[in-house]
Structure formats: C-alpha cells, structure tokens
C-alpha cells in the first residue's frame, strides 16, 4: 500500500502540525480565525470518521449525518429532559451513535453497493422524521437550545478550538491504527472484492460491523461537539443531506485510500467553500462548487494524494514503453509500488 512507507513519518509530521496549531491562539492571529477553525477541525474529523467505512471498505454511506444528529440529540435531549450538562453526557453521544450503527448494520449489511447508499440515505430521512414527530423527546421542529457555558467569546472560541483539535487527533489516530492493523487489511480486501475476501477467510460482516460502529461512534462524538458549539439543535440541520455529503466530498477530494487524504480534503474543501461564499455570494458559490466537485471526481479520481503519489512513483517506475498495455489501476492499489 502506498501509505505504508510514509505511515510513521507521516504521523510524526501530522503531530508536529497539530502541535504548531495548538500554539496558534497565543499568536497575534485574530480571534475570528480561531473561532472559525472549529468548523474545519470538525469537518476534518468527520471526513476521517466517514472514511473508515466509506474509503477503506468502499461502502458509501450517505447517512453519516444520522450519527452526527443522534450524537447532538443525545446531549440535547438529556439536557432538555433532565438538564444534565452536555459536558458530562458527551461520551453517551458516541455510545448512542454506535448503537444506532449496530441496528442499521444488522439491516443494511445484507445489501451492497448502490443499495447500501440508498438505505443509509433512508435512515437519515427516518431519523429526521422521527426528530420532527416526537416533540415530547426532541421538542419537535422547534429544536432544543443549549446553554452557553461562558459569555467570554474569546475564551469560548479557544476552548472549542482545542476540543476540535483533540477530536481530529482522536479520529486520525483511530483511522491510522485501523489502517495499519489486520482489520484495515481485511477492510481493503472487502473493498477490492468482497466475494474473494470472504473466500479467503475474511469475516466480512464482522469487519464491516466494526468499521461501521467505530466510524459512527466518532461521528457521534463530533456531532455532540458541533451541536454544543452551535448551542442549538433542530431536525432539519441535525440530519441534513449536506452534512452527509460534505465528508464524502472531502474524503474523495483529498484521496480516500489513507488517513491523510480526508484531512487535506477537509481543509481545502472548507477554505474553498468559505472563500467562494464570501466573494461571489450564495448561489454563485453553490454553482461553482458543483462544477468544482464534478471536475475533481472526473479529473482526480484518487484525490490530491493521488497526484502526490503519481510524482513519488514516477521516479521509481519507468514509463511503460508505447504499445504495452499499462497495468490496471486497481492492481497497482493492491501491491506496494
């Protein structure tokens, strides 16, 4: 795997970047950027958590925001019903998301490919309908307001910046160790060919379930943080298609085959979409973004990491002489080059 010869070194570089970022609040950088950075960090974590199932295993989940939503609603409902502090109920968000994933997994792992995609999208809509129609638990379409924990916005921005950073480190470490483990290899085998993987003795359902539950639990934690940061949760934003689509685009943009891609993709995606939003306005930015998305998928199938790898391998492998069929791409992904 291409990732293997840059894994530990890459992780060291990542940790160094995180450490450098951790010093940012102490530089003269305006507070505005520190406050905005939480969004990027949240999406980096979300893309990373989606990628554990979507990228490594090739099971495209369009329902990732169901876990974000259920994480947010876990802390929201506990506050709404019992006035428990979201800080204390925070871990429960991961637990409830993992349980939801287990239930969905029981239903959806019987099905593959496009059906899995549609089934997970359905789960998203079911969750949204439930949140709307059970006002005694979720306060319906009005949503739940969560308390401010400090009125000092500079301090609050910094606290969330560090929480965001911690969550990115957590999701990245999980993704990193899964990728290097036997489980990770099993997942990639499932992605390349599930039937062959099963024949070779991979417990496919078992592996997929672990990947799904881990991915969901991380998304639940992220969702709880995102919700508490926003201080409000309501059905249409908690369970939105956009929130599901964003991590997918980020992972694909960066490259979905290893843990570096989603991080790069999330940063570029968020920066580009914000710049577009600020410079050309809402509609035009949506339109440019759609074009950008189409171009990325058509022209950069392996994401930005793919370009980097192409440069790295160019020095090692000579170009095949003309007239010789180049190797099939899925092949080169299986064997380290």
């Amino acid at each position, binding site marked *: 795997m291409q990732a293997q010869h840059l894994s530990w070194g890459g992780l060291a570089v990542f940790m160094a970047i995180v450490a450098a970022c951790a010093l940012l609040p102490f530089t003269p950088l305006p507070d505005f950027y520190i406050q905005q950075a939480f969004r990027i960090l949240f999406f980096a974590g979300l893309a990373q958590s989606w990628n554990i199932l979507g990228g490594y295993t090739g099971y*495209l989940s*369009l329902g990732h925001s169901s876990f974000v939503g259920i994480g947010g609603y876990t802390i929201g409902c506990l506050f709404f019903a019992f006035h428990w502090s979201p800080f204390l109920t925070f871990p429960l968000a991961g637990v409830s998301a993992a349980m939801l994933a287990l239930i969905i997994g029981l239903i959806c792992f019987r099905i593959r490919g496009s059906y899995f*995609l549609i089934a997970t999208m359905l789960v998203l809509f079911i969750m949204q*309908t439930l949140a709307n129609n059970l006002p005694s638990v979720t306060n319906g379409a009005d949503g739940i307001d969560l308390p401010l924990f400090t009125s000092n916005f500079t301090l609050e921005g910094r606290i969330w910046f560090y929480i965001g950073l911690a969550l990115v480190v957590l999701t990245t470490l999980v993704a990193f160790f899964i990728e290097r483990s036997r489980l990770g290899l099993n997942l990639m085998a499932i992605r390349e060919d599930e039937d062959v993987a099963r024949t070779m003795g991979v417990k496919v359902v078992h592996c997929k379930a672990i990947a799904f539950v881990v991915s969901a639990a991380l998304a639940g934690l992220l969702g709880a943080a995102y919700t508490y940061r926003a201080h409000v949760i309501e059905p249409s934003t908690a369970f939105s298609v956009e929130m599901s689509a964003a991590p997918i*685009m980020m992972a*694909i943009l960066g490259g979905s085959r290893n843990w570096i891609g989603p991080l790069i993709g999330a940063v570029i995606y968020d920066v580009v979409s914000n710049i577009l939003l600020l410079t050309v306005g809402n509609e035009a930015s949506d339109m440019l973004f759609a*074009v950008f*998305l189409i171009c990325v*998928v058509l022209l950069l199938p392996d994401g930005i990491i793919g370009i980097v790898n192409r440069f790295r391998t160019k020095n090692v492998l000579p170009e095949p002489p003309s007239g010789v069929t180049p190797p099939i791409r899925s092949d080169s992904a299986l064997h380290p080059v």
Partner: protein
Amino acid sequence: MLNVLVLGILNGSIYALVGSGLSLTYGRQNVIDVANPAFVVVGAYLVLFLSEKFGLDPYLVTPLALAALFVMGAVVQMLLINPLLSRPDFEMHVQSALVLFGLAMFIQVCLVLTFSADFRGIHTSYTDAVVRIAGLRLPLVKLISTGLAFVTLLSLYAFLTRTFIGKAILATYANRETAQLLAINVKRIDVITYGLGTAIAGIAGLVIALTFSFSPASVLPWTVIGFAVAVIGGKGSVLGTFIAGLTVGIVEAGVSVTISANWTYLAVYSLLLLVFVVRPSGLLGERL
C-alpha cells in the same frame, strides 16, 4: 376507504412515472443516478416556460420539452458518465453518485437563478375542473395524469420488449460484455438509455407541473420518492415500477388518512427498508 384507494392510485401512478425514468438510468453500469429527479423538476420548469412563452397549452409544448431533455440526458451521459466507465466497480458507485449529485446541485442553482426559489404551478382553464364518478369528486388533471402515466409506462414496456433498440437496452442492462459480443454498440445504447430516462423524467415533470406546485427545492422530495419507487419495483422493470408506484401512493394515502400526514414519509421509508431486508433486488428485479 374507496376514497383512499382512488387517491392512492391517482398519486401512485404519478410516482410510478417519476420512478420509471430513474429505474432506467439508475443501477445500470453501477451508475447511481441522483440527477434524474432533478430533470423531473427541470421538465416541470421547461413546460412552464415554453407554455408561457408561446401562450400554448402545456400538453402541446411537451414534445419540445422532451426533445430538449433527451438531448440534455445524452450530453450528460457523454460528458460526465462515459469518462467514469473504465474505473473499478466500487469507485463507480461513489464517483458516479458524486458527479451526478454535483450535477443535481448545479441544476438546482440554475433553476433558482433563472426562475427564483418561489413555488410555482401551471394554472389552466381546466385546472379546477372536477369529474364525478360513482359519488367521488376527482380532479380532471389528475385523471389525465394517471392516463398519461399508464400510456407512458405501457409504451415504454412495448418499446423495451418489441423494438430492436429496446431489446438492445435490456441486453446491455443484463450483461454488457455479452451485448458487446452480439455487435450491440453499448456506448450508443448508453446514450440512448440515459436520454430516454431523462425524457421520461420530462413527462413526469409535465404531470407534476399540472398537479402539484413545485420549486427548485422540490428536487430532494422527488429524489426520495423516485428512488423509493425504483428500488421497490426493482431496477429496470417497468411492471415492477408501476406496482411499486401504486403501492407507495396507496400506503401514503392510507397513512395520511388513518394516522397523520406527518407520518406518511416514515411509512414509505419503512416500506422501502422492509423491501431491502426481505428482497434487496426489488419486487420484480433480477436477483442479486
């Protein structure tokens, strides 16, 4: 009771129409066609625009709209889907869904920019006309729409089973490599299939323009209904799509009358999940 059944059949046949275009284009070649329902809404706006521009009845300008949509579909297939065909299966799922999602988003923004985000509808002299049959008051436009849906699905079925191109489409669907060995130009069939699916989306658009109100944001709800019908029916099966459309319509009408309109979507989603669990390939689709 009869009321619910009739309402279910009237709406259900429209849903079947929305699902039938999708059933043709989705699932083929691992392409997940999330853009087809966007073309339904484009169809609705095209009919609205053309009938206002020429001052003609919406039904009369429809052929023009369908031709335009067929061309659009063919262009989409050539520009956006063909470049993806050489990629491995699991990448095709992800990437076709993303590309077509981008296209749907693009279409939606274009509609907002040209027609504004307001809800629109087509109002004709006969929009409010009511037909009385057996004590039921049935809106004329819905009856016409149901008739149109029947005719469209029947002709689609006849086209697929009786003509050479139709059979070639089914053959390519069933096994691409074999179809190629039988001297079928699969690339051309792809373009025709996608154009046809888009044109059928246009007929669905006409029907929706006349019977419901619509806005650029209608893309999402119609996507859900379209996929529900196409998946329950089984991809590529016209008859299955028809049955699925009626089922969805009747379930929806039944739930909204007996429980509450809030729960209709949940009922449809649960029905779909049930089909997934019991028979993932849909009612009349090929077994996986």
